[in-house]
């Protein structure tokens, strides 16, 4: 589903740097989510948003910040990257009455 895009697809950074992962959807879905995928853990929810300017923590929010000034964008920021944040990050969205989550193609982040 090309309606939700993530960038960059790959990112390498160093410990302590700030990194922002972008997510953009074209459906005007109200609800958006950030997951991280780690071997042995599956996908875990970091943050989610119910609408512009409304965000809430998920299962593993520490070290991450999100914002949602516009409905279509939901960036995820690592304020001071750590090696433990090396992971694959997925953005997803769902419409108010839609049962299916749409996923972006993921961002593979390596923190050295």
């Amino acid at each position, binding site marked *: 589903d090309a309606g939700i895009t993530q960038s960059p697809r790959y990112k390498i950074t160093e410990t302590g740097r700030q990194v922002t992962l972008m997510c953009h959807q074209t459906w005007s879905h109200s609800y958006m989510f950030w997951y991280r995928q780690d071997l042995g853990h*599956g996908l875990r929810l970091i943050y989610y948003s119910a609408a512009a300017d409304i965000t809430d923590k998920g299962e593993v929010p520490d070290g991450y910040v999100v914002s949602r000034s516009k409905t279509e964008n939901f960036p995820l920021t690592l304020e001071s990257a750590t090696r433990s944040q090396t992971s694959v990050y997925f953005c997803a969205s*769902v419409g108010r009455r839609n049962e299916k989550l749409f996923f972006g193609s993921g961002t593979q982040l390596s923190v050295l």
Partner: protein
Amino acid sequence: AQTVTQSQPEMSVQEAETVTLSCTYDTSESDYYLFWYKQPPSRQMILVIRQEAYKQQNATENRFSVNFQKAAKSFSLKISDSQLGDAAMYFCAYRSPETGANSKLTFGKGITLSVRP
């Protein structure tokens, strides 16, 4: 909180054979949705099949079917006539019946399926 358990980290199947991937979950809700997602090496998350808990009939999508046992809280995926393209990681996921923010999925840890030619 709901939990989803996939106890087998890896499985292997011979091409054209049938394989079953196991999943159990824990919830206090009576109505909910269950999903199987496929993740090939491209990383794309592909919805394979969905089951509504209030439906007694097991969902089927071509070669993919589920065995949904509500009382046992079990939701296994059966892949018939396995093909090389079925090789991927498979995730079982749970979602409460509420819409919106509660549409967030709770995932199992995943199982890596390999298909032998």
